């Protein structure tokens, strides 16, 4: 079997061959891994990786799975699944195209109402997560089509808080 895994920015293709109930052979880029394993629970595996013991703790997360080994988290996704789920979901650095909170949060203040004109970068809503306030801004010049939340609402990443109808050719400023 082949697994194409995305770990951080790297994409690694693994060839996997099951050798027994508790043994699997993995290879990638000429590197061979003989893994003996015990699945202790849904969240804990005890591995012997080429003979060296490793405790790996694992849980599903938004883009795949998180694996913790010796206190260090590894965020691993199935590259094919990530690709089919659509591109454009970049990190925080890219200017977001939608007004959505970066983490689960509570709406603290709405700074615009339906019909308001906004310019790119204008502050439109303040959300708070664990006592830290974050101000979200308009991704482009345009008009507020709808405000989908009220102050005090709990909101999640991916949820569109405010819809903005972008002006024609809105990415350029007049």
């Amino acid at each position, binding site marked *: 079997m082949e697994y194409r895994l995305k770990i951080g920015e790297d994409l690694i293709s693994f060839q996997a061959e099951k050798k027994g109930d508790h043994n*699997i052979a993995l290879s990638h880029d000429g590197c061979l891994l003989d*893994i003996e394993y015990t699945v202790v629970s849904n969240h804990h595996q005890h*591995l012997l990786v080429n003979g060296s013991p490793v405790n790996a703790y694992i849980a*599903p997360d938004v883009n795949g799975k998180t694996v*913790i080994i010796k206190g260090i988290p590894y965020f*691993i996704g199935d590259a094919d699944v990530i690709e089919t789920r659509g591109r454009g979901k970049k990190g925080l650095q890219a200017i977001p195209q939608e007004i959505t909170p970066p983490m689960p949060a509570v709406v603290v203040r709405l700074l615009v109402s339906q019909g308001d004109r906004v310019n790119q970068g204008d502050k439109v809503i303040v959300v708070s997560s*664990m006592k*830290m306030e974050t101000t979200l801004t308009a991704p482009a010049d345009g008009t507020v089509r709808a405000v989908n939340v009220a102050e005090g609402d709990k909101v999640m990443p991916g949820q569109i808080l405010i819809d903005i109808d972008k002006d024609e050719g809105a990415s350029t400023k007049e």
Partner: protein
Amino acid sequence: MKGKAIKESSPMFTKILVANRGEIARRVMNTCREMGIITVAVYSEADRKAVHVFKADQAVFVGDSDPSSSYLNIDKIIEAAKQTGAEAIHPGYGFLAENPLFAERCEQENLVFIGPPSRVIRELGDKTIARRTVAGSGVPVIPGMNRPESDPETLEREAAKIGYPVLIKAAAGGGGKGMRVVTQPKDFREACISASSEAKSAFGDGSIYLEKYLSRPRHVEFQIVADQHGHVVHLFERECSIQRRHQKIIEETPSPVMTPALRERMGAAAVAVAKASGYVNAGTVEFLVDQGGDFYFLEVNTRLQVEHPITEMITGLDLVRIQLEVAAGNPLSITQENVRSRGHAIECRIYAEDPEKGFYPSPGKILYMQEPSGPGIRNDCGIYSGFQVPVEYDPILSKLIAYAGDRNQAIQKMIKALEDYVILGVKTPVPFLIDVLKSEAFIKGDTFTDFIDTHFSDWKPNRCDADAACAAFIIDELSRAGKTKAATAQGSADQSPWQTLGPWGR
């Protein structure tokens, strides 16, 4: 009648309300239970399943998740105490702990506030009054103003007199709110306006004042305890220089900078501050220590500190027990002469936050956790596997404390404990803390308040077990695929949406 040999003592409380949540509420309740005191918890909507509710003898629902409707609502907390017949209230830290109106209200309602008198909280809470009080007792304060000022021209004149760089601070301040460093005069007015408006929104009071800005100081604080009979004892220092966003994340005691002579002088200064302010109960006197080893008074925290456990480790004392004894009216059972410090203790704060993204908050559900253990390891923990970490409150999950014979051993013990600490479901600073503790600068004790900016500004963990992690991923896929066939229809209440999305592989 009592015989003369028997020390006169006031009766201990039979029931205490803990007006806080999470790890600190649990920690306070632990001592109460040891002392046979009945505990009352309060909780909000978001905290129905919080650990402090389960650990209390009684729990009272006080309102909505928003802190102002629950943990900050004085009327509701007082009512909960009355309704349950609690005689005293322990405020923990944060929320109402340093609110003089709350302490005053307790006094009026005949409830014992486990902390200093409201007058002391009020006076020390205003940083400029605190500076005046302390300067009067002969303890060095950072050069600067002793009164808040709003007139921009007067402020500008004062800034010139103090000399740039200057630090603008909020009189009602704390937690870095309303604080601005100004390095040149042309930026001064704008900084004053923004500092004042931030202070206004954070504390409801926009008063600001100026202090000389010290570059690369150390943050060193002294724990004090004072009884109602005029005895004040300091319990040595805590070094808290490792901070992000002006919030401490690693604390240790003793401080690597401390010498016996400096400790004696700073300890005496801390006691002098406590006496000058009429302090009662446990408190912390914070100082900055500059590169030349001179120290300056910063402020007094009129509460039990987050980092109090490290002091407990090196002294063998239970600070909550002392707080309760003092609040009940008993004299301190310790003296400055018989308090001893032994070994070295370090605390790491485990927040729900992402150290790879500027320590952004990371609330969520704890899917799995495994706490470290072993000799010298203490974990003051407010979460459990399955707990939904609320977005409404401070992101602290737990405090991991390591205690050993000396600093190097304590560092090694902490690294091992962090490596063993598993929290899945939210991001935590555990990998960041490991790297800080392993860094040369930390090991050398070069800990200044700019430590993280200087050494760890663009930090990423060294992910050297990527192969093993990928193997775990693949094995998880295989074992889930096997299980799904075996038990497809079996729903489970504690599954997260990510689990119910099904296997990712082919």
